[in-house]
């Protein structure tokens, strides 16, 4: 997958668990886990906005493009 999700790293920097984030952004832990492991097909702007607002980061901090 050329698009890499770096949610794990951002969470680590913020000392926040996935469960805490799930509660704050009102997204199920299962869905956040899918996103974190890079198994999601797409991400809604509203989801991205909620995560960025909670973690105080930019979309570029969460996603990166890595050529295959």
């Amino acid at each position, binding site marked *: 997958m050329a698009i890499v999700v770096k949610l794990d790293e951002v969470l680590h920097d913020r000392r926040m668990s996935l469960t805490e984030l799930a509660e704050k952004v009102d*997204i199920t832990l299962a*869905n*956040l886990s*899918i*996103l974190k492991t890079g*198994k*999601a*097909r*797409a*991400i*809604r702007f509203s*989801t991205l906005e909620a995560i960025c607002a909670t973690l105080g980061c930019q979309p570029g901090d969460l996603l990166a493009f890595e050529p295959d």
Partner: protein
Amino acid sequence: MAGSKSTALPIAYVSLRILIVLNWIYGAAILGLVTFTFFNEAWFMRAIDVPAGTDAAPIMIGLRAIAFLGLLAVPINHAILTRLLRMVETVGRGDPFVAANAYRVNAIAWALLALQLLSLAIGGIGKAIASKQFPMHLDAGFSTSGWLAVILTFVLARVFAEGTLMREDLEGTI
């Protein structure tokens, strides 16, 4: 609306089950009839009102060919009915928009096409063996609604496939 949905599904399921059995009975009946013609051709000719003095050989060959084509329709009908049944089952499970159903609709479209071709062949044979002495009216041949159904089913299969892909994308969207 919910009431009609809840009753329509079991009715469709039971109807399809009955039609599957009737289809095989229909096939067995044709097979039995064709087999019988080999043992008692004269009786059969009288039964279908072939006038005396008419050359029975081409009529018999034609009728047996029609029966053979009718037998070919049995597995095709079975393929259609069983796929429809599987689709009804997926609706019952609340998950009909799956790739398997898109393939099923596509397979049904090909089966309907095959049935239309069989119908054309049967209609052609019927016309070939019909005469003034032995007029024969078969419910077969070119059917505008039949071919429209074929085209419609192919289009629906494509729509279903696209819809399934969109649904998969939606499911993978967080």
